[in-house]
Every structure is written in C-alpha cells, then in structure tokens.
C-alpha cells in the first residue's frame, strides 16, 4: 500500500472519530451550568428577550434536531456566530489558528533542539557527572508548573532585562520568532524534559543492543554508529511520546498564550469559556481535536518511515 492510500484511509477513519468528538462537545456544552441565552442576553434582558434568543439559537427544539443542525452546519463549515467576537466562529478561528500553530511548531522545534543533544550527552556519559547535572536540571524544570516558569522568564528576561517583548505577536517571520521566543521556550522546557528523559533511556538501551555491538565489531566509524544505528532506533519510542506531548502542548497553549498575551486560539478559548460563548467553545474544541488528530497521523506516518516493520502491507 502506498503511503498516499494510507493517508486517505487514515483520513477516512477520522470521520467516526470526529462524529464522536462532536457528540461529546454537543452534550458537554449543554451540560454546563448556566443558560447561554441568559448569558447572551445580558443582565437587563426580559424573560421574553431570553425566550426569543432561545428560539433563535434553536434551543427550544428537541436535542436530536439540535444535534442534527449542529452537525450539518459544521460539515458545511458553518460553526455559528461568536457572541463574544460578534463575527463568524469560522472567521475568528481562521484568524487565530496560524498563531497557535506557529507557537506549537516553534515549541516543538525548540524542544528537540534542547532535548536531542542533551539526551545524547547524558546517555553517553551515563552515571557520570554530565548525566547527573542534566537529569537534575530537567527534574527541576519538570516539577515546576509551566505558568510559573513563564512568569519567571517574563519578569526577568522581558520586564527587567528588556531582552524580549512582554507580549504580542509580530508581523514578519523574524518578528514572530522574536515575539514568540519566550512563550515557546516556556513550553519547550517542559516538553524537552519529557523528551530528554525518554530519549536518554532509549539511547542507553540501544547502545547495549546486539546490533550495535555488531556494528561496532564491524569497525564502523563512531559517528555512523551513533547516527545511523543508535539514533534511529532510539527515536522510535520517542516519536510516539513526542506526538502525545504535542497534543498536551496544545492544551498548554491555553496557559502560555494567556500568560504571554499571545492572541492565539488558547487565549481565545479561555475568553470564550469565561464569556460562555458556546458556539466559539464548540468551534475551538473541534479545531483543537482536528489539530491533535493530524499530529497523531503525522506521528504514525513518520514512524512508519522510520521503522520498516510498521509499514502496512
């Protein structure tokens, strides 16, 4: 099976997943305490106004009908109107999506740049002081909450030393790299700690594997043994973990984007929740679910590139 067929098959399999996601979102929003119509109508609305809003939102119809409307509108790309932003949910999300994607990719790249080399140094010096230092530092990083690290970085690097902006997004690619550096590093410190630990133990395990012994007995250059034989094999388990961490990392953007005042989907989600902007919450949740599914798909594809045993017949 070619990888293209595989991708289509996987995309096709995402349909039932999304149906379930939509059921859950639909029910979740309706189980939340509070009436969206009351929230929308504001404090001084009369009962008649609220009833009118209910009817306009279709809340007076049976649940099944409501769900059908939600489903068919979503499939057509219509996620409803945001109460908070006074605009189409789709438009709002399309506007904010690139920022969050940029932040996520940036964080992942930084995580790998931090975790990869350090994992190698730690694994090759296993049990000696470089290993101990690296592991201790990461242990500390891992045990501190992301928002706390973010605040510390903001206070020192941005507010006091004025090395970085305290918020915002920037317009050009370079400006974005600069503006989003602190939030990305904040997220990356946590993610890289997880990746580093996993990669380190994977490398240690692979270093003792018989095929690496065999590669050494063949008299191959050290660089080739590490790059071709050790790293590739060690990456297999780490890639899975990385995929899962990216999923985690996306929900982490709620905190990071808020702390660093980045106008992305995470911060929007928080605002939407506070404003009880149900259409927006639904749309954002759906978008996050879509992104995470795509990340998992890419993880699987990368893994099958890496490991021939995973290639499907």
């Amino acid at each position, binding site marked *: 099976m070619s990888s293209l067929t595989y991708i289509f098959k996987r995309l096709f399999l995402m349909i039932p997943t999304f149906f379930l996601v939509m059921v859950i979102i639909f029910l979740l929003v309706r189980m939340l305490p509070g009436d969206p119509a009351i929230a929308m109508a504001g404090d001084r609305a009369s009962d008649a106004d609220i009833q009118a809003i209910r009817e306009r939102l279709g809340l007076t119809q049976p649940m099944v009908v409501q769900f059908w409307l939600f489903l068919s509108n979503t499939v057509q790309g219509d996620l409803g109107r945001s109460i908070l932003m006074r605009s189409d949910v789709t438009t709002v999300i399309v506007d904010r999506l690139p920022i969050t994607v940029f932040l996520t990719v940036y964080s992942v790249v930084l995580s790998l740049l931090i975790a990869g080399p350090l994992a190698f140094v730690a694994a090759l010096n296993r049990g000696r002081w470089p290993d101990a230092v690296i592991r201790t530092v990461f242990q500390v990083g891992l045990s501190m909450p992301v928002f706390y690290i973010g605040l510390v970085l903001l206070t020192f690097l941005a507010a006091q030393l004025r090395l970085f902006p305290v918020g915002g997004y920037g317009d050009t690619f370079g400006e974005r790299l600069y503006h989003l550096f602190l939030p990305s590093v904040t997220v990356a410190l946590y993610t890289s700690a997880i990746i580093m630990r996993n990669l380190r133990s994977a490398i240690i395990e692979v270093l003792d594997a*018989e095929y690496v012994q065999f590669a050494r*007995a063949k*008299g191959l250059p050290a660089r*080739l043994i590490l790059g*071709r*034989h050790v790293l590739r094999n060690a990456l297999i388990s780490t890639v899975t973990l990385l995929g899962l961490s990216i999923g985690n990392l996306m929900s982490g953007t709620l905190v990071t984007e808020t702390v660093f005042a980045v106008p992305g989907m995470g911060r929007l989600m928080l605002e939407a929740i506070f404003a009880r902007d149900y259409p927006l919450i639904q749309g954002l949740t759906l978008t996050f679910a879509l992104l995470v599914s795509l990340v998992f798909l890419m993880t699987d594809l990368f893994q099958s590139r890496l490991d021939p045993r995973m290639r499907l017949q």
Partner: protein
Amino acid sequence: MCTTFHRTGQALPALRDVSFSVSQGEVLGLVGESGSGKSVTLRSIIGLARRYGNVTGQVRWQGRDLVGMPDRALRQIQGREIAMIFQEPMTSLNPLLTVGLQLEETLHAHTDLSKVARRDRAIEMLNLVGIPSAKQRLKDYPHQFSGGMRQRVMIAIALAATPKLLLADEPTTALDVTIQAQILDLILQLAQDMDMGVVLVTHDLGVVAQTCDNVAVMYAGRIVEQGPVRGVLKHPRHPYTVGLMRSVPENLPPRTSLYSVPGVPPSLDALPRGCAFAPRCAACVASCEQDRPPLSLITEGRQVACFNPVTNEQGNAA
C-alpha cells in the same frame, strides 16, 4: 588476558589469565557452561569488552597488541581483519536498515570499492552464503528473513571485508536443529576457502568434535584444559572436562535421568581462593582449596590446570 567488570565499587574478574593462540586456518573450540567467560573472551579480543570493563594483558594480532590500541586504530582491524558473528540472528541485525546497507557499510568502512562495486560485492557475498535471489533481497529488511537466513546474512556481513580471523559466538544456538548443521558447515567451508582462523564458542561438545582442530575448556573465567580436539575429548584430564563429557547424553535408554556436574559454578564476586572447581570436584585434594592450580603443559600440546588430573584410564572410563 584478563577482563574485569566493575559493579558498585566491586571488581568482578570475568576473565583471569586466559591465554591461547589461533593460527591461520585453524578452528579453535571454546567450550564451557554459561557464564564461564566464553563470550567475554571473544568480546575482549575484538575490543567490545573495553567499553564495559577493564581489559588487561595482551591480545597479540600479527605482531601488534590490540588491548592498548586506540579506538581509531582498532577500527581498522575490527571487521577488516577480525570479524565477529553473534548468537542471536533476530537481534544482531539492525531492524531499521536494509541488509544491503548493513553489508555495504562494512565495505565502505574497509575497502576503496566504488558504490557500484560495493553493491556487486554485496550480491556476491549473499550468493556465497546461500541466499536465493540475492540481488532482489538487498533491499529487504531483516524481519523479512527467517532465522537461518538472517544468520547467513550476518555471516555475509562479517566476512565481506575478508577478515583473517572469525570469532563466532554460539552462532547456531538460537537456530533450529536442522539449520544448525547447515550454518556450521557454511562457516567452516568459508573459513577453509578464505584460509581464515575461527574461534568457535559453543557448549555443544558434539559440534567441537566434528569441527574443531583444538579446544579450550573454560571454567569460571579461566581455561582449565586445552589441546587438540581428539586428545581432549578422548582422554579428558581435567575433572571438569570429564564432567562435561559425561553430561552429553549418549546411547542412553529412554527415561534414564541425565547426568549433570553436581553443584553450580561460583559467582564472580565469591570465587574460592584455590581452584574454582574444587567445591564441585570429586577428585579434590587438600591443595586444591589452598592454591590455584596453574595451567601447565602435561603432554605434547596439552595443558591442564589441575593438581590431581584424571589419568588416561579413568578418562576412558568416563
């Protein structure tokens, strides 16, 4: 040659005073129980043990000492002059790389052949070890081969750069009985064709009898007896060799309980002061527990480390 491993501040002597030589075209069998140091011996020769422990003494290879040799210089000998094959064909090949690449990288490291020539040589090697349609199989991955075929691939890789000495660490133990003989024959045939010395680690005395010129018996990190195969197997002089011979079931009626050497080998952190085999030995005398018997020449080409060696007649009886 001595190899010591360290564990939490404690020195574990895995090999002590192991000494033997192999000449061109010779097949030396290295036998002993699990944990007696057979594999460590091979790994110490080819320089794999130095990453895990402390190797002292000498490994003389064509006038040079491999023990003190820097890694870089050693790599010119590993795979090119001395090659090693491992026990487990399932885990000794990198699962992520095609067999073609794994063969080719050895050639790349040790020869000046062009890319095309390396490919031709790889096909030639696979043909040599008896892999059908070698050309198509270059781009296959290890999991697409059976155990026996993988062992053939490993032999092809090890021998690609025409080494002068092959270290074979129980190359047939993990294979089906029917395949074992084929692989052994293949190794010996290629060794003969390439005029290559072989150190064959095994615990199968039948294999030793059929294939080796000389044999060294190891116990608790030492060689306790060595000499020509015919002599050692026909007239074993060390009580441990006698015990090993007796534990090979031969012409036994069904349901007879099998003989095994009584007791267990000593652990490396609690080796007895005298002969390591003394606690299990029926012929143990007073001096055995006090002093360590040196490996000494008792007859032409025959060395035994025992104060009270079995005589020829007793040996026959065993």
